[in-house]
């Protein structure tokens, strides 16, 4: 609507954003209830921990204040939430949402109102780039889907030396579809063959039927780009049904829960691509794991880490911008270079995607073991 646009121009011009005084307001538009509540909540935990740490010293003499809204895991509510954060709370930037779709629901508002949005985990390419054009105010902390899929395909072909792969996709997730697409492309280009392609929907619990038909296609390898909640069950049920081939997935697997869900034995002979490994001796990572343990009394998962990193990514930009002005923050975000964070070393490219290295881990007796590191 034209009315909305006219109006928004004046609003962002009129105030500096982020509130005056000694606080900078940051919005968090997250999935705190509804279908993927656990992602939103994990991110919120990571962000809150980071804010606590950051506020010990403050940024340019100011403290960060988090204003959370719950988008109920719905796109429309994500739009509502973004509008409220921008026009009522006048935040300087928004963190969220966890999923690509809910982030996409805010893109136009961010651009119209000139407030930056950083999604910690929206991995779909279209979040930052639409029709070949960069969404000026949208950033992300995670790497994009094609990268992980490509890395996995090369690993399967070259290191595991398999030729016949099956793919099992979470059809409710752009993330899963994106990984699968690039995996298939690279795998077939490298001489491999996809013998079975099946799908499931998030929150399913019984995959035996699908796995039975995958098994009967006799694959040598299963690519399983999903989130740990389902992956844990799928791996367990696959092994029960005697599907003992190597299984590989992406960062969505990374959670201590996976080991509990699938069981140590079932997880042998599985691999993932990841941002980081919580078992990584890197002091930066161990410090985070320890701090997180202390605050929440549990081990951090990938979403915790990404939420945490998003907060630091933003804080760094604010510091460099020297101001809480959303447009300046946006510029600073775009110029981020070699920032050391938990999930890797950040450099934001021209498409607003972080250039980070990926690592490949293998599960052995319930432990992640470092395999290789792949640079972009």
């Amino acid at each position, binding site marked *: 609507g034209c009315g909305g646009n006219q109006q928004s121009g004046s609003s962002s011009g009129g105030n500096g954003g982020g509130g005056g005084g000694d606080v900078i307001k940051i919005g968090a538009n997250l999935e705190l*209830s509804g*279908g993927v*509540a*656990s992602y939103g*909540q*994990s991110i919120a935990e990571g962000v809150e921990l980071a804010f606590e740490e950051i506020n010990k010293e403050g940024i340019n003499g100011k403290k960060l204040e988090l204003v959370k809204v719950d988008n109920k895991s719905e796109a429309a509510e994500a739009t509502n939430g973004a509008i409220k954060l921008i026009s009522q709370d006048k935040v300087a930037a928004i963190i969220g949402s966890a999923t690509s779709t809910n982030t996409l629901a805010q893109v136009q508002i961010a651009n119209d109102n000139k407030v930056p949005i950083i999604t910690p985990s929206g991995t779909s390419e279209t979040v930052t780039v639409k029709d070949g054009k960069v969404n000026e105010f949208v950033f992300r902390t995670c790497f994009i889907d094609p990268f992980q899929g490509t890395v996995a395909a090369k690993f399967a072909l070259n290191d595991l030396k398999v030729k016949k792969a099956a793919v099992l996709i979470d*059809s409710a997730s752009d993330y899963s579809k994106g990984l699968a697409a690039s995996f298939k492309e690279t795998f077939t280009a490298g001489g491999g063959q996809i013998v079975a392609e*099946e*799908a*499931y*929907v998030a*929150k399913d*619990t*019984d995959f*035996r*039927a*699908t796995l*039975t*038909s995958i098994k*009967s296609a006799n694959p040598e390898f299963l690519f399983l780009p999903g989130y740990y*909640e389902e992956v*844990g*069950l799928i791996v*367990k049920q696959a092994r*029960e*049904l*005697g599907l003992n081939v190597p299984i590989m997935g992406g960062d969505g697997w990374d959670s201590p*829960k996976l080991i*509990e*869900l*699938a*069981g140590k034995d079932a997880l042998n002979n599985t691999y993932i691509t990841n941002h980081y490994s919580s078992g990584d001796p890197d002091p930066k990572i161990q410090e985070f794991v320890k701090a997180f343990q202390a605050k929440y009394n549990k081990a951090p998962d990938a979403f915790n880490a990404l939420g945490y990193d998003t907060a630091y990514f933003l804080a760094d930009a604010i510091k460099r911008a020297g101001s809480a002005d959303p447009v300046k923050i946006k510029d600073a975000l775009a110029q981020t270079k070699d920032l050391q964070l938990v999930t890797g070393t950040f450099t934001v490219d021209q498409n607003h995607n972080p250039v980070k290295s990926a690592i490949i881990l293998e599960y052995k007796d319930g432990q992640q073991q470092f395999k290789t590191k792949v640079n972009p």
Partner: protein
Amino acid sequence: MELIQQLVNGISLGSIYALIALGYTMVYGIVRLINFAHGDVFMIGSFVGFYAVTMLHVGFVPALLLAMASCAVLGMIIERIAYKPLRNAARIAVLITAIGVSLLIEYVTIYLRGAQPEAYPSTLLPDRNLELFGVVISSQSLFILGTSLVLMVLLQFIVHRTKIGKAMRAVSHDAEAARLMGINVDNTISATFAIGSALAGAAGVIFGIYYTKIEPLMGILPGLKAFVAAVLGGIGIIPGAMVGGLLLGVIESLVSGLGYSLWRDGVAFVILILILIFRPAGLFGKNVREKV
């Protein structure tokens, strides 16, 4: 071979549906209330069992009993607080309240412990895979099928052969007339909810053992599916819930096995609608015409 494996898969899935559907159908049969909170009581049962095992370090049987007892109490509390005051209100008002109770249980659970899932310890029940001619049957799924059958028989016995069962049926037809027979209507309805919820609690623990993963919203879909199963068999009819659950499980497995796994839930609902249109009283129900 694949077909037989799919049947086996379907029966184990169906036994879980049946297990939840038994309690559902009983409560509906007596109180004529679509208790949307049933799936959430199932979830609570699952968590009670989980915490009993991980924090109190008890074995399977005590955990199961504890879950059943807590759910029975929870069921009675829900009935007393949320449904009893609405006995004479419009059906739809009670339905809305049931939805409210369901949301409340889910989000209070999330508030208290977060939305993240838990994994049931795998050591609770022995899990051995029996392989017969290439078909894998897990000992747990046999156990679940057996449990559902036993509970079905038990429930059928309670409702049709015992005094409390007769009281339940009388209350379901005409509560005021039942009072004139000397039946304590409030206690009878409480007992109904207690038994139904205890069954849900048992189903929760068994579900946790079989599928490992439990989380605060886990009750929604199985609850809905169990209701479909109950309707399929003829709602209020206890053996109907059993057969409906098994049938639903097998159909879903076959649909997934054919490569249409994304349509699985859709097929469940299509079947539901077809059944409702062509045999509204379900497979086991009698079609009684309204006497004018």
